[in-house]
């Protein structure tokens, strides 16, 4: 008789536990190859699909696990500890699914789409950035062009589409029509059968190499029912920004935890070699443990507030579109993106040359390179400029 009948080799007790196992048993062992070859983390994503995690946010009555933001964030952290690229792909997919679930379920097209996504475990990418616009999410050049028979055509010249070549479908923003100003944007999903991607460059980067995010020209068509009825402005403030900043921060928290784990193992090894003396590196470990705790507390606190607001349809929705909330989300992004780099750097100081060597079990080079992307994806200077502007009117009353 088994003590815990649920915990057999084949089954796990929760979706989070399933992802934790995929992280340690599949994503982790492949992480160095994914990084070295700058290739898609196919093993991890296939395993996540097999475990039906691409629909983790989908309500149970529609066949998903009905996870909330906090549980999903924990999954991102778990993956981030072992393979930041796989974690970031997983996070970016769920930012898109969350947008569909919150804003488009009133549309027949999307009710069917969510069923299809759940059944087929489809992978959704985003095509946010545009040539001539850069990373500014709330401005577009490309515009919807109406076509015959209730269909549209829409082309977007993208500076980057993460895992574009591997994605089933792509969600992105565009101007409502050719006469719209840059910030009058709609949000639309286009399907693999309806789009072509022309790769316009390489993805040979310092870190986050497995996200496979080269520039692409996206050319697509679709039916008018695929255009979100909710303006992109609302999707951005209520879902895209909070989900992005919370899930990204959890991926970065995972990177930090992974690096500190190696530093801890290194210090323990030193301590065992000379019982009775505290190794000098232990002092730095004590310091980095405190930094990690601050980062974790901040990330969890904001995720928890987000989840509460998202569950409250009236007051919560008002709060999500407020300047005070936007400032808090931006602060989370800049602080966690800075902390992850500091923490991993500190882990490198602790492990010394053993952390610097790529073939050492204490190597943190990949963690450091991955961590350095955090301050750049939506550049922190751009975010500080936005915050500076918002602080001119915010009273903290």
């Amino acid at each position: 008789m088994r003590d815990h009948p649920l915990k057999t080799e084949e089954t796990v007790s929760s979706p989070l536990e399933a992802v934790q196992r995929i992280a340690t048993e599949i994503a982790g062992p492949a992480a160095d190859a994914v990084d070295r070859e700058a290739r898609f983390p196919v093993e991890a994503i296939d395993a996540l699909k097999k475990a039906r995690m691409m629909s983790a946010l989908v309500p149970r009555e529609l066949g998903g696990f009905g996870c909330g933001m906090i549980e999903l964030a924990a999954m991102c952290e778990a993956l981030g500890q072992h393979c930041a690229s796989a974690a970031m792909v997983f996070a970016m997919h769920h930012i898109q699914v969350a947008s569909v679930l919150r804003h488009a379920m009133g549309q027949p097209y999307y009710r069917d789409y969510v069923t299809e996504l759940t059944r087929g475990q489809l992978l959704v990418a985003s095509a946010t950035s545009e040539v001539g616009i850069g990373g500014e999410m709330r401005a577009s050049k490309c515009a919807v062009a109406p076509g015959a028979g209730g269909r549209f055509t829409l082309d977007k010249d993208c500076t980057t589409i993460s895992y574009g070549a591997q994605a089933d479908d792509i969600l992105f923003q565009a101007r409502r029509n050719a006469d719209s100003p840059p910030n009058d944007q709609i949000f639309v999903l286009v399907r693999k059968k309806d789009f072509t991607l022309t790769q316009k460059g390489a993805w040979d980067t310092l870190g986050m190499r497995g996200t496979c995010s080269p520039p692409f020209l996206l050319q697509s068509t679709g039916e008018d029912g695929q255009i979100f009825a909710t303006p992109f402005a609302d999707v951005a403030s209520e879902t895209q920004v909070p989900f992005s900043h919370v899930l990204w921060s959890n991926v970065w928290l995972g990177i930090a935890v992974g690096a500190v784990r190696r530093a801890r193992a290194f210090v323990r090894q030193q301590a065992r070699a000379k019982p009775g003396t505290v190794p000098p590196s232990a002092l730095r470990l004590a310091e980095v443990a405190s930094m990690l705790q601050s980062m974790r507390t901040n990330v969890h606190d904001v995720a928890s507030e987000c989840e509460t607001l998202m569950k409250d349809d009236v007051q919560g929705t008002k709060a999500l579109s407020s300047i005070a909330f936007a400032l808090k989300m931006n602060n989370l992004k800049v602080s966690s993106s800075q902390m992850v780099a500091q923490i991993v750097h500190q882990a490198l100081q602790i492990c010394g040359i053993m952390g610097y060597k790529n073939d050492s079990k204490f190597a943190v080079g990949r963690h450091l390179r991955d961590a350095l992307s955090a301050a750049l994806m939506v550049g922190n200077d751009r975010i500080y400029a936005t915050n500076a502007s918002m602080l001119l009117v915010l009273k903290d009353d």
Partner: protein
Amino acid sequence: MKDQIRAILKEHARLAVDVDALADDGDLYQAGMTSHASVNVMLALEGAFDVEFPDRMLRRGVFESVAAIRDALTELTKDR
């Protein structure tokens, strides 16, 4: 009050269309007002009407049209 609001929008909202062509309930964001421009509109309104928008009012919906801005200002100045 509406004329003064429109004058401020003309100067600070950086709309893609003439503000006079917009109805009182016309969507200013759809007309091209960015988040950054909306902050300048807020600052100019606070200066012109000698009010301070409390944080609970600092959200998109409150500044989405001439009518919405007028309602917010009316609420802040009703006890004068």
